[in-house]
């Protein structure tokens, strides 16, 4: 994360006057890599990640993930409350929540498959179908829109050469429009997987895409 080659570690307004480093803003050294097993047993509901490489066939709730699941269950007085974190875990591993995964979760939490489907489809963050390695979500709501979000979205579509909502042939990118991402003072805000890119202008887009492509190449 610290090797991002462009200006704009975020939130510096239009002029970019600002003297913190990327590491300081993102706090990579502070966050570190949170443990996949979910950390302290009474603490966090879920340790969310959005991984670049996911496997639709990955086994669910095995090894460290099994440990995390058990911790999650202790944090709520009712089993059903674990549904959202568990669905998040499925998506982390498999990249999307398939009907089969939903059935598996229903079985695990003693819920009906229809109920789990109803909840999964209610929330926008659960992908109901596979998406690219990089899910690009461009905020086009009012504050970003006033500052040119439509052009940023168009630039992403142009440089990835795909249509809105579609996935590129190489499986690297899916570009979608997002609702307000709560970074309105730093427009345009673009969420790519789990990271926010702020103050993005159309001119930044090719550099961002190049950077993401390099990440995919590096992981092979």
């Amino acid at each position: 994360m610290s090797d991002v080659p462009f200006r704009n570690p975020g939130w510096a307004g239009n002029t970019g006057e600002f003297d913190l480093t990327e590491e300081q803003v993102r706090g990579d050294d502070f966050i570190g890599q949170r443990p996949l097993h979910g950390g302290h047993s009474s603490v966090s509901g879920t340790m969310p990640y959005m991984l670049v490489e996911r496997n639709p066939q990955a086994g669910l709730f095995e090894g460290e993930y099994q440990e995390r699941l058990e911790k999650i269950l202790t944090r709520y007085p009712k089993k059903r409350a674990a549904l959202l974190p568990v669905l998040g875990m499925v998506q982390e591993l498999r990249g999307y929540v398939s009907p089969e995964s939903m059935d598996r979760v229903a079985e695990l939490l003693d819920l009906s498959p229809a109920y789990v489907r109803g909840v999964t489809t209610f929330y926008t963050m659960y992908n109901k179908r596979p998406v690219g390695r990089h899910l690009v979500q461009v905020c086009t709501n009012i504050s970003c829109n006033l500052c040119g979000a439509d052009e940023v979205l168009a630039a992403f579509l142009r440089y990835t050469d795909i249509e809105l909502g579609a996935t590129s042939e190489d499986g690297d990118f899916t570009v979608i429009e997002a609702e307000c991402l709560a970074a309105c003072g730093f427009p345009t805000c673009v969420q790519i997987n789990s990271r926010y890119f702020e103050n993005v202008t159309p001119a930044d887009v090719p550099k961002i895409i190049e950077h993401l492509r390099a990440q995919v190449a590096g992981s092979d």
Partner: protein
Amino acid sequence: MAYPYVSDLEVRVISKYFGDPGQRRIDTYVERGGYKGLQKALGLEPDAVTEEVKASGLRGRGGAGFPTGVKWSFMPKESIRPHYLLCNADESEPGTFKDRELMRWDPHQLIEGCLIGAYAIRAQHIYIYCRGEFFEVNQILARAVEDAYAKGYAGEDILGTGTTIDITVHQGAGAYICGEETGLMRSLEGERGEPRVKPPFPAAVGVFGMPSTINNVETLAAVPHIILNGGEWYRQWGTEKSPGTKLFCVSGHVQKPGNYELPLGFPLIDLIEHVCGGIRDGNELKAVIPGGSSVPLINAEDSSICTLDYEGCVEVGTMLGCASVIVMDHKADIVKQVRRMVDFYAHESCGQCTQCREGSAWTARILRRIEEGQGTEEDLDTLMEMTQQMVGTTICVLSDSVAAPVQSSIKKFKDDYLALIRGGERVGAA
């Protein structure tokens, strides 16, 4: 100074360490006087803590402005049932970006506030319902909570006082409606985040059927300072009815957008001109939304007399909401922006109430038609009448939030609509 922009006019109480990554570390936080408020609170009776917050006049910062101490006092005093404190960190009102900054720069301040609140309402468990998109913030909070456990500020027998309070950071999954308190509770229980009718209020029947209190991140972040320095101290800022400081999230067409902590009652025009450096490119001010997309727009004339406190905003026909000031200059296309906001509500409506589910989508379609030059003057009457039917007739206020920008923009910027309808020049480009 680093953090995006600072102004001499600011009073930085809760935003003092924005831009300082060291503040995330528990040792630094404690060195700078952190967790002293918690220590002091644990030495008092829970009701004395509530009284102190009442004395400060602190009002809920999530939008409704309900007095926090009063809310806490609704919780049962003698109860064998478990109580819960919920922290609403599902920040997603368009224009608002304060809670994310509070959590990523100063997570321990929020945790300390949560612990004090939980002690005051006799809760044993805190859930911080953090917006799902905030992966980074979730990780920062999780790390901070673990550190608090390790140092004995959370968990069993806090600081040797015998008080036990657990904290869970719960990640949402992307639904604006989960910022509504009953929607949040249902989402936390593993359901769809559909709001329910009140009463019963959360203090009687809350999450998991138990007495619960829900507070916004910014409200809870102010609590440690109030406990440490006293309620009277907090009243040195702000107005009689709206005491204290507030974070103003300024976005849109200003030179220096960002978060500014100012005393309540600050004049809106000074915020734009002196704190934010004026309108971009020397343009003229056209419209302001002072409280996030759910409140009515005001024009330049009203903006010049508006003061930013709960009462001052009502006087000019709008609301302070969560103080998310969206500024538009004379090049802004009001119709397009209103349509974009209504699109948002149509997308986020949970679909329980007909007025909201159908009304928001229908409103968006009419606005789109006007935007594309296919509208008629009767459409404006239809919009006014239809949105009027969406006010106060549904379970929650999402439906009312559609009416606010539509009605206010038709009243105050009718020329923009008429220009599109009559096929003249469009008023703005962006």
